[in-house]
C-alpha cells in the first residue's frame, strides 16, 4: 500500500451529497479483474452516455479536473453498499484523498485499507473549499497528514481528526493484518477462552 504523507494537488469540487456506491461504480463492473483499470468505471453512469461517450459536463471529464488527485464533495459520500470497488475506482483514477462533511458507513473504513485518505471537515468548511474551487478551477489544495491539516487555495488552514492508529498505518503504508499479527498471543488466548465459553460456536459442522 502506498504511504500517505502530504500532497498538494488539483482538487475537484463535486457538489452533491449522498453520492452512493452504485454511482461510484455500477454493479456490472464489479465482476471485472482489477487489471482492467477500475478508473474506467468510476462514476460510469455520470461520466459516460449510453454509447460509452464521455459526457463533457461531468466534473471529472473537464480539464483541469481530469488530473485531480483530491475530491471535495458533500455529506454521506460513498453511502450504500459495502463494495470495495467503490474505493478501488477512486484510487485507480488517481485520487488520494476525499474531503467531505461525512462518509457512508463503509467508505472511510474501505478507504484506509487502500491508502485513500478520507478527510472529515465541518459542512461550512467543505462548502467554502468547494466555492473557492469553482471560482478558480485547477486551484490546488494541500493535505498534510502529520499535522492533520488541509490548506485551501486561499491559504486558510483547516485541522481534521484522524484516529492515531489509522494515521500511523497510512503514514507507513501498513495494512491491518500486519498490525494484527503483533497481537497473535492475545488472539490465541482469547480464541481458546471464547470457544470454551460458547462451544456451540466453535465449529460449523457442515457435514461435507
Amino acid at each position, binding site marked *: 500500500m502506498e504511504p500517505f504523507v502530504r500532497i498538494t494537488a488539483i482538487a475537484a469540487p463535486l457538489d452533491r451529497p*449522498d453520492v452512493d456506491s452504485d454511482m461510484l461504480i455500477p454493479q456490472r463492473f464489479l465482476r471485472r479483474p*482489477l487489471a482492467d483499470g477500475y478508473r474506467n468505471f468510476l462514476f460510469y453512469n455520470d461520466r459516460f452516455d449510453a454509447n460509452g461517450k464521455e459526457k463533457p459536463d461531468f466534473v471529472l471529464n473537464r480539464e483541469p479536473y481530469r488530473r485531480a488527485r483530491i475530491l471535495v464533495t458533500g455529506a454521506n459520500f460513498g453511502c450504500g453498499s459495502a463494495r470495495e470497488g467503490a474505493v478501488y475506482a477512486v484510487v485507480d483514477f488517481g485520487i488520494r484523498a476525499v474531503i467531505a462533511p461525512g462518509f457512508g458507513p463503509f467508505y472511510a473504513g474501505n478507504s484506509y485499507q487502500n491508502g485513500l485518505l478520507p478527510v472529515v471537515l465541518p459542512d461550512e468548511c467543505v462548502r467554502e473549499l468547494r466555492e473557492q474551487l469553482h471560482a478558480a478551477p485547477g486551484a490546488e489544495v494541500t493535505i498534510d497528514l502529520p499535522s492533520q491539516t488541509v490548506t485551501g487555495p486561499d491559504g486558510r488552514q483547516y485541522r481534521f481528526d484522524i484516529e492515531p492508529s489509522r494515521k500511523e498505518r497510512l503514514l507507513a503504508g501498513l495494512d491491518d493484518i500486519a498490525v*494484527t499479527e503483533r497481537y497473535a498471543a492475545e488472539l490465541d488466548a482469547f480464541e481458546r477462552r471464547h470457544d470454551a465459553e460458547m462451544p456451540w460456536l466453535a465449529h460449523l459442522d457442515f457435514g461435507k
Partner: protein
Amino acid sequence: METPKTMFEKIWSRHVVAQRDDGETLLYVDRNFVHEGPFYAFDGLRRDGRRIRRPLKQIAVSDHYLPTVGRKSGIAGIADPDIRTMIERLAVNAREFGVPFIGIDDPRQGIMHVVGPELALAQPGMIITGADSHTTTNGAFGALAFGIGASEVKHVLATQALWQRNPRTLRVTVDGALPKGVTAKDVILAIIAKIGVRGGSGHIIEYAGSTIRAMTMEQRMTICNMSIEAGAKAGMIAPDETTYAYLEGRDHAPRGDLWNKALAVWRTLPSEAGARFDKEVALSARDIVPMVTWGTTPEDALPVTEKVPDPSSAATADERAHIERALRYMDLTPGLPLVEVRVDRVFIGSCTNARIEDLRAAAAVVKGKRITVPAFISPGSTAVKRRAEAEGLDRVFLAAGFEWRDSACSMCVGANGDFAAPGERCASTSPRNFENRQGRGVRTHVMSPPMAAAAALTGKLTDVRTLS
C-alpha cells in the same frame, strides 16, 4: 450498583481481543459470510501466501451472480462468461481454502442473508460479518452483524478478528399495533423517512417497543435489513421466545445440553432497564400507513396517500436541490398524487422481502386476479421456493401472470444481469432506490410485497388497502 448495559455493550465486551490506547478495539468475529463479490480477498490471501485461520467459521454462499432462470443446466448454462467466472471462482476459492460452501445446485442455496437465519448460522450474542451491507439482517437475532469491504474480509479470513472503534447507540422504539395493510417494510421506511439516510450514521440501532416485540422473526429481519439505509452500521433486536422458537431444531442450532447452555447465555443479552443510549427516537405504529419511495434515496419515502413533493416547499437549499434532482431522474411532477404514478414492471424478491411470509402476503393480494404489467418473483432461498410451492403459492402467482423464478439477489442489484429495461419504472420490494441500480435510467419505487403485488394488478402505485 453496576450501570445498566445495552445489549450492544454486552455483545461487544464479550468479543474484545485487545484494545489500543487510542480506543481502537480488536474484535473477535464468530461467523463471516462471503458471496462471489469479494474475490479480491481470496486473491490477496493467495498473493500473501496466507491461509484462513478458522475456515469453519466462514460460510460462502453463491447469490449475487446466480441466474434466476434456466438453472437446470447449471453453471454451464450461463451465457455471460464473466458471470460464469464469478460463480466458479467462489466454488474454487471455497474448495481451496476449506470454506463451507453453498453453490448453485445446493438445496440450501439462497440469498445469504436469508440462508444464514434459515440454517441458524445467525444466533443471539454473535458478532457476524459479511461482505455485504445487508448483513445487518442477522441483527434480528440479537447479534451484532455488519457488512465489511473486501480488505476487511481478507483480514477476518486471516485473523478471525477486525479492528473497530466503539460506535454510538441509537434506540428506535415503535409502540402500538400495526394497522391493517401495514407491514414491517412500511415501519422501516417510516423510520428512515423520519431520521434520514444519515440519521443512523456512526450508530448501532436497537429496535425496541411493543410493535417490534409482536413481530415474527421474518418481520424483524426486514427491519434490521434496512438499518444500513439509515446510515447505521448495524441494527439489532433483543432475542426473546420468538427468537428461540425460530432457532430451535434448525440445522446449525445448538442441540441437547448445548442448547440449554446457549439459551442461558442468550437470556442475559437484552438491554437492561435504564440502559443509556446516545440517541432515542420513538414512533407510533398507529400513525404508519403503507409507504412508497418517490426519489433516489431510501429516505425519500412517503405514505402512498401523499403527493409527489414540491421542491419549493423544501426547508433548506440542499433539500430543494435534492428534490429537484431526484424528480428529474424519476421523471415525476410535483403535486402528482403518488397513486397516479404508472409503473412498467414489478419485482418481488431480495434479502429484504422474499421470505415465505412476504410471498404469502403478496399471493393473498393477487389470488384469483390478473396482473397488468410484467412481474416476476425470485424467492429469498430455494427452501422458501419449495415451501411456497408446497403451499400452492406458485400456482397463485402463475395464474395471476407472474413469472416464478429461482432464488438470487436478482433485480435488487442486477449482478446476474436481471435488469429492468432502460428508463422503465419498477415497483420493487428491494431495499434501495439508487439511480441506475436496477438498470440504466431505471426508476425504482421501493415498497412492501403486498404493495408491489397491488401495483402489479393495477399498473400504478396503489394503496393496497383500497383493493377489494
